[in-house]
């Protein structure tokens, strides 16, 4: 009986009523702009826009519509306004080229703006040269799928590619973002999922969290951005199976963690970054099953971090495995593979018989005296590191891996 009531209930919730109409927009016909079509349409209708270039000075979509672009029609705001604003729930926008929103310092002009709405899907669009690409403010249950977003790469006139402010339960899947300020920006966005996106060559961060709790991002690639990914003032973030590659330069990091708690960092690849992970004031972080390959600093863990666990990671070909700026407390390393480990495994159980100390003496010296980086890879540095490993006296006693793996972890 109960299931029947549910079924009847579901029937009433069908999004497209059977009596919906389709309105066709084409250049040179009666309905020549999207704006006209929206005025004509009723809730539940479909608008099909034929190939062509349409000027769209902040077209407002305030009805429950399915808007489909045929063969990628162009909506152009000619740098005068926003292109499109969606103020109604249950809208689908698919298959457009959206370009040239206004820029300027007083307002955040966007290619597609969603304001106070639920159940909207934005898919298969190409956004070119907009100040902000897709701007979600105060939204819930939104899907942003398979969009290709390119900014102007101009420092003054670049907003964020995908910008979320005060949102909940948003899905971002298979988007490509480049040449914006931050590729993807989250502020007060909770319980969101960011999957399979590619963010490269953005001016600041590939992905940026501020005050956003309970989000997950996985299978994304962040390449050659200003600073990779930055997670700040945020709780319970899961970062799974992402790739951070070639984020190079001074004060540039694969991941920058600042004042975050209870995060999981699992199965990620950090390849050729200046610093793989930089952590400051970050508590209860678990870092497991990650690969750190060919980074300058695999990890920089500041003394303000507490109760962090690093287990079953691979550290290969990094100039420095771990550095810090003071005394680390309650930071645990266990069961990691370190290519710099020179111990032995007499009982052949796969783990080394003597502990590995990931913070080298030379790393400590550089911390005190950055100029000494000049001596890198010199005979004297190798010598003092070897002596210190044999007879540890200066490197912190507490930071060590009691069970270093003899062979790298395989995925």
């Amino acid at each position: 009986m109960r299931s029947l009531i549910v079924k009847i209930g579901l029937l009433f919730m069908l999004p497209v009523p059977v009596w919906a109409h389709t309105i066709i927009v084409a250049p040179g016909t009666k309905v020549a702009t999207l704006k006209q079509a929206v005025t004509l349409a009723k809730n539940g209708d479909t608008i099909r826009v034929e190939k062509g270039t349409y000027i769209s000075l902040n077209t407002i979509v305030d009805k429950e519509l399915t808007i489909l672009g045929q063969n990628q029609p162009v909506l152009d705001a000619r740098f005068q306004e926003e292109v499109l604003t969606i103020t109604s729930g249950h809208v689908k926008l698919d298959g457009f080229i959206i370009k040239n929103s206004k820029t300027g310092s007083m307002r955040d002009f966007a290619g597609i703006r969603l304001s106070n709405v639920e159940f909207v899907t934005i898919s298969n669009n190409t956004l070119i040269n907009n100040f902000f690409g897709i701007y979600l403010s105060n939204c819930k249950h939104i899907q942003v799928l398979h969009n290709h977003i390119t900014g102007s790469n101009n420092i003054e006139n670049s907003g964020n590619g995908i910008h979320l402010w005060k949102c909940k339960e948003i899905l971002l899947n298979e988007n490509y973002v480049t040449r914006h300020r931050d590729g993807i920006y989250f502020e007060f966005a909770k319980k969101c999922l960011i999957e399979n996106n590619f963010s490269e060559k953005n001016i600041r961060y590939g992905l940026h969290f501020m005050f956003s709790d309970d989000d997950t991002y996985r299978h994304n690639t962040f390449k050659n951005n200003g600073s990779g990914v930055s997670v700040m003032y945020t709780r319970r973030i899961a970062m799974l199976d992402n790739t951070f590659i070639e984020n190079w330069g001074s004060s540039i990091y694969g991941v920058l963690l600042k004042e975050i708690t209870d995060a999981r960092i699992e199965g990620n690849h950090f390849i050729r970054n200046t610093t793989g992970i930089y952590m400051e004031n970050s508590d209860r972080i678990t870092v497991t099953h990650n690969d750190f390959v060919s980074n300058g600093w695999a990890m920089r863990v500041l003394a303000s971090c507490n109760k962090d666990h690093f287990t079953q990671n691979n550290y290969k070909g990094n100039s420095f495995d771990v550095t810090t700026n003071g005394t680390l407390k309650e930071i645990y390393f266990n069961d990691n593979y370190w290519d710099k480990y020179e111990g032995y495994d007499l009982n052949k159980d796969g783990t080394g018989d003597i502990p590995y100390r990931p913070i080298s003496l030379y790393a400590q010296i550089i911390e005190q005296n950055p100029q000494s980086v000049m001596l890198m890879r010199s005979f004297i540095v190798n010598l003092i590191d070897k002596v210190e490993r044999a007879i540890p006296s200066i490197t912190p006693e507490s930071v060590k891996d009691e069970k270093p793996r003899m062979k790298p972890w395989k995925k």
Partner: protein
Amino acid sequence: MKRLNIITMLLCCLLTACSHGPDPIRYGKDACAHCKMTIMDKRFAAELITAKGKVFKFDAAECMAGFLKENPTIAGDAKSVFLVNDFTNPGQFTDARKSFFLRDSSLSSPMGGNLAAFLSRQAAEAAKKDKSAQVYDWSLLLSKNK
């Protein structure tokens, strides 16, 4: 001759490093001294020069205030110079001690402080959008931050 050129160039570099004064912010390159974020937005960026001439750059006025909270000696030093951007004329540094700060929820400054600086109290009042917005002067801003 060529060598002389190189030497003068080197000398110039050395001399500029000693100069006491504001250092232009390289937007998109310099990182905030407080929150580590790259400084991007001209409207909100701030700078602090200590009595000894050390320069700290910030992406927002709230970051400078936060930094001063942790470094009260710099905050209390009359010789410290605090510079902020005038919101209505971004890119132009003005003295923070003489500026007025608007905290308005419609301003989305980089660190969530929703703060912007203005040359006069009138200008700050005029930019109000939110009814509950408030205008502070510098000393009030610092005391609010404690």
